[in-house]
């Protein structure tokens, strides 16, 4: 499956995700610190879902579980019906920090996934770099890149793996507001052209509403699902859309922030 698909332009079909009764806790000085409390939801293949919640509520932990970096304390995670037991390149995590390897050029950073699996580099890497607009910086080292460019490189590194699920852990959280707006648009078009299932963790209400088809609102730690808000708007979306303002009020209300609005 990998061999044939690897030569095609990025048209991976998205995978479905099932999160079934997942709870998780960390050990903090010998005492359990609960971070996730009975979280269940399903993401359809190719769907764009945002997980919205206050800082430190455990959203990122959920992504780490889906990535397979850690097993959950309780519950089951399924991808296309099969249980997640360990990391797999079809589910790539993009972090808040680009975490590019400073000793590798942009091209070699992007090639990381292929190299880790012992695959030939091929045209895939340059294709991904073209997709994120970094062709001219392929031979630059990460410290020459701006924040937005570094995050684009990190996206290219993820896309090279032809992911069926892209896990985005506040990938735009540290960018300046103008770069952020540009990259929100780019994320949508990447998702539309590639067809992966996208799961975006964010604490930015507008970002969640602008990007996702569904916004799952999480409570404070330990995170539990408070609401599942469908965003019934076609793409491309307009930031000034009155429907977005309506949804924002609704979601802020769910987060208990409507008094500040």
């Amino acid at each position, binding site marked *: 499956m990998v061999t044939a698909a690897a030569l095609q332009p990025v048209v991976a079909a998205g995978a479905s995700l099932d999160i079934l009764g997942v709870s998780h806790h960390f050990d903090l000085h010998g005492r359990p610190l609960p971070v996730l409390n009975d979280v269940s939801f399903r993401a359809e293949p190719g769907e764009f879902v945002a997980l919205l919640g206050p800082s430190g509520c455990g959203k990122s932990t959920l992504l780490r579980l889906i990535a397979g*970096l850690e097993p959950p304390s309780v519950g089951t995670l399924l991808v296309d019906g099969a249980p997640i037991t360990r990391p797999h390149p079809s589910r*790539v995590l993009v972090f808040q920090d680009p975490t590019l390897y400073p000793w590798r050029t942009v091209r070699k950073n992007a090639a990381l996934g292929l190299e880790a699996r012992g695959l030939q580099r091929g045209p895939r890497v340059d294709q991904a770099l073209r997709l994120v607009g970094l062709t001219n910086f392929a031979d630059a080292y990460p*410290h020459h890149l701006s924040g937005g460019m570094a995050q684009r490189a990190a996206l290219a590194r993820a896309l090279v793996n032809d992911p069926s699920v892209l896990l985005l852990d506040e990938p735009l959280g540290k960018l300046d507001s103008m770069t952020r707006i540009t990259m929100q648009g780019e994320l949508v078009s990447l998702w539309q052209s590639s067809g992966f299932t996208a799961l975006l963790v964010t604490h930015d209400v507008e970002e969640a509403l602008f990007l996702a088809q569904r916004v799952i609102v999480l409570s404070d730690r330990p995170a539990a699902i408070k609401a599942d808000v469908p965003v019934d708007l076609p793409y491309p979306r307009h930031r000034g859309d009155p429907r977005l303002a309506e949804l924002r009020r609704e979601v802020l209300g769910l987060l208990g922030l409507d008094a500040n609005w």
Partner: protein
Amino acid sequence: MSSARTATLPLSREAGEGQGRGSADRTARPSWSLWRIGAVAAAAWLAAAAVTHFLPDNDDFERTKLLAELMAGLGIALAVLTIAPPQRIRRAGPWLIALATFFTAWELVTAKFAVLPRPFFAAPQSLLEVFTDDYPKLGDSVWHSLSLLSGGYVIGAVLGFIAGVAIGWSRVVGYWAHPVLRLIGPLPATAWLPIAFFAFPTSHSASTFLIALATGFPVTVLTWSGVAGVNRAYYDVARTMGASQRFLVLKVAIPAAMPSVFVGLFMGLGASFSVLVVAEMMGVKSGLGWYMQWAQGWAAYANMYAALLVMALMCTGLITLLFRVRDHLLAWQKGLVQW
């Protein structure tokens, strides 16, 4: 000027070129004053040559004429270069003047007026005589020192590196190696000298062991701390993409630890020099340390100074070599120190 030098360190090819153009612009303007410095330096060296040649020596010196010729030669070369001085020579201008002044003063207080007591203070031409007459023995000493040093250093660096990676990576290795390292590591390698010369069949193998030990400790500790300090997120990134343990060690941990490893290699090199010299003075019957000891025994102070000078050149040459290798391998790093 020093800041310009550090910035020239090419972070990338484009940055290097941009910097080069900048410094060319900067030197274009004050070319007149630099030209003058070159002329002054030329005059100073010619004056030094004149003092050396025309003032009578107060003792028998074999190489006074050669010294004067070398000084005059340098002066003439500088005079010619003032027309179109290369960048490096241009930068050395003030140093060339200072050196000419120093050599003149040295010549005056030793060879000409014997202000400083002989033979403890050797004249410049006495050192020159050592180089012209005793170079086979000096060269041989350099060769022996270098081969002894490089053998011990390479063994120590390789073993230290492997040990450091193992300790940093594996909990079990760390558990067992840490206490041993804490106890043995800080002990100066020279403290092992009596045991080593007794336990090893030859003084050469004993010295190799001591040099390896002196090199190995800092390399181990800094490799270890480099591996232990690798950003955890680097591992997560590689793991989500299906990387094996082998990949995590070879392609993530080790490259990330390299800046720290090079600090260890640098410290290890310094430690290895001191062990080398002590070992050569104490037991090994060859090398620069032995040469100095031998020269001192014969009250041949000029030979001692000459050997010291050669040793300094050897050490700084090796450090420079290490920094070159580092600059090449760690070109991706920002703000490297310029040696």
